[in-house]
């Protein structure tokens, strides 16, 4: 136990070393370039970050992006699970959805954003884009998960005349938890990236993307970097929160942790 703990501590030291190295290189690079407009030094970015956070409309900007991201994610999460289950249970449904998911997967994000700009109200564009980018990930994971569901348990349930609805709730869904969890944490990262990119182009009133674009327009590079840092933080925090929620649900309902 101690050995493992020691190893983990050693590991986190390395992360700290890496962060310090980045800051040192960054500082030196900014000294060499000597133009804040191209690469401002870390302390200016930190100052700008504090400035942004203390401004009174900071929460409006972040909460709007948070809402859009979570809305897109929730829609894709629910529809991904439902449609994934349909495809996993019926090959017709799978073949029906295959071209659609393939198209979404291989369409460039920018094309989706531009089309959404034509089709939707500005503030809804990021939600749509976030949904479309994360849907294939959750959907794909659910379909893959279904193929790994223990066939002998299904055979048992059929012999004991368990209804399909009960089988879905009691056999399919619990077996899918690790796949849904993996798909969700993968897609959360994609959601924030695409939502913010969509905000940059669609310019809703409040949003991290809108703020990024404003900073870029006025060539305030330290603000671009500060907002980027906020976006990274948002992504990391929501992913951790999501893992925690899933962990709690899993532990409570299934009495054991999955592989």
């Amino acid at each position, binding site marked *: 136990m101690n050995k493992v703990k020691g190893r983990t501590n050693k590991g986190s030291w390395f992360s700290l070393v890496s962060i310090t190295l980045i800051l040192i290189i960054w500082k030196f690079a900014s000294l060499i370039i000597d133009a804040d407009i191209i690469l401002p030094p870390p302390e200016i970015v930190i100052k700008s970050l504090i400035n942004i956070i203390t401004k009174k409309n900071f929460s409006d900007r972040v909460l709007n992006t948070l809402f859009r991201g979570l809305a897109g994610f929730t829609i894709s999460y629910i529809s991904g699970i439902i449609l994934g289950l349909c495809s996993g249970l019926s090959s017709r449904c799978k073949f029906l959805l295959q071209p659609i998911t393939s198209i979404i997967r291989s369409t460039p994000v920018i094309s989706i954003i531009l089309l959404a700009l034509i089709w939707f109200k500005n503030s809804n564009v990021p939600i749509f884009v976030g949904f479309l980018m994360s849907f294939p990930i959750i959907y794909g994971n659910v379909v893959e998960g279904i193929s790994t569901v223990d066939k*002998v*348990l299904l*055979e*048992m349930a*059929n*012999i*004991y*005349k*368990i*209804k399909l609805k*009960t089988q879905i709730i*009691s*056999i399919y869904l*619990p077996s899918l938890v690790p796949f849904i969890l993996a798909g969700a944490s993968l897609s959360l990262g994609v959601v924030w990236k695409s939502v913010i990119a969509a905000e940059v182009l669609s310019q809703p009133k409040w949003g991290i993307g809108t703020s990024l674009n404003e900073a870029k327009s006025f060539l305030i590079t330290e603000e671009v970097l500060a907002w980027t840092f906020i976006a990274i933080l948002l992504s990391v925090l929501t992913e951790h929160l999501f893992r925690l929620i899933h962990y709690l649900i899993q532990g409570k*309902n*299934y*009495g*054991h942790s999955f592989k």
Partner: protein
Amino acid sequence: MDIHLSNINFKYNNLIIFDGLNLNIPKGKVTAILGPSGCGKTTLLNLISGVIKPDSGTIDYPETQILSYIFQEPRLLPWKNVSENINYVLGNISRDKRDERIHHYLEKMELVKFSNYYPRELSGGMKQRVSIARAFAYPSNTILMDEPFKGLDLNLKLNLFKLFDEIWKEDQRTAIFVTHDIHEALLLGDQIVVFSNRPVKIRRKFDNTTPYNERTLQNSSILQLEKELYTLLS
């Protein structure tokens, strides 16, 4: 009413498994099907349970046949505890009667203390006991058993046989028990049907008239039957 299979033909990937099989499974008795591994014993259970259909021939069932199954592996849901696993198959029984039923069969299988345990916390033998409790708690009139004692050590097996007999004689459901182990067939089967290799023919049928509580491997009639079975199979 007995289960009666007449003139059953069944092919699997051009492999003839049954070629005109006739078999009568008497009501309220344990029929042991003894045969070499892979000869088609599980296929017989699948035919009886209706999971697969014969190419030709008929299977006559009692009018209200309800089946339960004890599989080779326990097949318990890993995310449900022992009583939840049994409760899972009791959807047709009213809620207030379910707990009583679960408790009764757990008691019979000496599992009451473990009702809140998850399968991963149980030994192989205990899991199989849960599987047996589940099969009996399910309101069936026929029980199919596919080598449920395979891989368990002898002591555990003998103890399980005892528990099985106690639970079985309560309502004497028709049981079809597939095995490749002569001793299991001798100790549990009221009727022992010996299968040949594919295509399956019934080599012989034995009636095991020794009452259950006298069936030991030292009993003279059991020994005599054992000798006959060995002669037939060697």
